[in-house]
């Protein structure tokens, strides 16, 4: 069964049709990559898939339930989580709190027990703490748990975004340029991490990335967007050889396409 069905998704900003007729049928445990030149509309697709922008037309169905019109937090509560291209951490909170914040919707404590800080509430906090630490461990963030997020180095911030997204217990994870600005070794680590997460958490993943040598080995399927339109899709091999794709990238002055 397909977990996510997106049909004819379009959005208009004034005169600009930023995404035009986007379709996606995502299988369980599948990893689909979306690539395309700058300004193609990739992030905008994510924004629609997480309820931050409301599409002008089209439908989004998660396991048969239509999500269009819901608030972003409802998308998250139904199991779509994401990271942001321009990192959006809770910068004045500690690393561990950043991740705990993403567990807010799973919290079992009500207002009264929180105000009184009852024994059960403390116990829940402790359990949550341990759960978060076990998530931070494989991401190499455990020893930085008490640092403020804004004081982390860039690569750590990206991994923290990942940890935070995982904490919401998603069915589908959307990664927006997870290796942007990283160096080669970090990119390789991140590729391993994504593969591992996908397996351990049994997640479906949609990935936006410009680094072809990051995307191509791990993606099951690639969709290529240019000026809001899907110009090509298929397995990484097929897409890489598609003349339209090469055209779009070279036409846009993008050098990294065949790197």
């Amino acid at each position, binding site marked *: 069964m397909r977990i996510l069905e997106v049909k004819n998704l379009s959005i208009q*900003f004034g005169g600009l049709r930023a995404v035009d007729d986007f379709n996606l049928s995502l299988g369980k445990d599948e990893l689909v990559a979306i690539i395309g030149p700058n300004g193609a509309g990739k*992030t905008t697709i994510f*924004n629609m898939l997480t309820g*931050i*922008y409301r599409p002008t037309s089209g439908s989004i169905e998660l396991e048969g339930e239509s999500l269009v019109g819901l608030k972003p937090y409802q998308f998250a509560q139904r199991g779509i989580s994401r990271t*942001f291209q321009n990192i959006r951490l809770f910068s004045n909170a500690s690393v561990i709190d950043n991740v705990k914040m993403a567990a807010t919707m799973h919290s079992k404590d009500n207002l009264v027990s929180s105000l009184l800080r009852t024994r059960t509430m403390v116990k829940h906090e402790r359990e949550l703490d341990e759960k978060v630490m076990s998530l931070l461990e494989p991401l190499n963030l455990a020893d930085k748990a008490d640092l403020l997020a804004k004081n982390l180095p860039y690569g750590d911030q990206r991994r923290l975004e990942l940890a935070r997204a995982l904490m919401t217990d998603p069915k589908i994870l959307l990664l927006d340029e997870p290796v942007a600005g990283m160096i080669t070794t970090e990119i390789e680590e991140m590729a391993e991490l994504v593969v591992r997460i996908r397996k351990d958490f049994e997640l479906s993943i949609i990935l936006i990335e410009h680094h072809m040598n990051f995307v191509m080995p791990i993606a099951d399927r690639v969709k290529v967007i240019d000026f809001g339109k899907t110009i090509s899709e298929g397995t990484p091999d097929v897409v890489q050889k598609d003349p339209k794709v090469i055209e779009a990238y070279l036409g846009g002055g993008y050098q990294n396409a065949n790197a």
Partner: protein
Amino acid sequence: MATILQYLVYGLQLGSVYALLALGYTMVYGIVGMINTAHGDFLMIGALGTYFIAKLFDSMSIDGTYPMLAVGCIILIATVMTGGIAVGVEAIAYRPLRNKPRMIALITAVGVSMFLTNFPRALPFIGPNPRPFPTLFTPKTFNVLGASITSTQIIMIVLAAVTMLALDRLVAKTKIGAQMRAVSMDKDAASLMGINIDKVISITFFIGGALAAVSGICYASVYPQVEVYMGSWLGNMSFVSAVLGGIGDIRGAMLGGFILGIAQIFATAINSTFGYAVGFIILIVILLVKPAGIMGKVTIEKV
């Protein structure tokens, strides 16, 4: 009918005071992004300053009226002085906080406002007592459809409208206007383009301060009394006007000022407390319908 018309005249008169003051609020907000709660006090400084400058010109007055030239000088000195004080306030108190959270600048503005009210109040030759404002213009009264309208009122209303138009053109057409727009959109980018941000902001504050002085003179000409507290509630009301019209928008400030002035006069006719509150009620109603004010545009934040 005649009474309604008469109220309308009063409304426009009060509205032009609000509008002139709101223009400064809106420009500062649009360009610097801060709510300058001390802006109302510039009005007070303008009016009080005029009072003292007029005192200096006393020897020229005949029967309590001044020759046109003297009036021109008095007004010019008062507006330039107020504009200068506004520039000084910005340079001393606001500029160092430009990159801090906006609430910090707001609190500083509260402090500045407190200073601007209490400093003259503490000075022995000014003090807290209200003073009669000198007659700068001897009004001629006209009768229109049973309502009386004075030349002062006409001057005020026309002055407000002309200033608004001039300011609108200034921002839209001139080089400094283009720089202002650039700074309001993106300070860093503007700075990279070689725009002197400090200068643009100083000019903005100067214009805002000068307009506040003009509006103070207008206000005191029709309600001829000046005191150190007059800036605070006038400031609040014109701030509401600016927001009502869509803060950051020059035409909006004008529109908001007149709407509020007229509404307040009519409401005051019913009950004076209600007259004060009506502005806030209109504000809330309008913001609930149009969250960015009448002329403001709601933008979707790019993510």
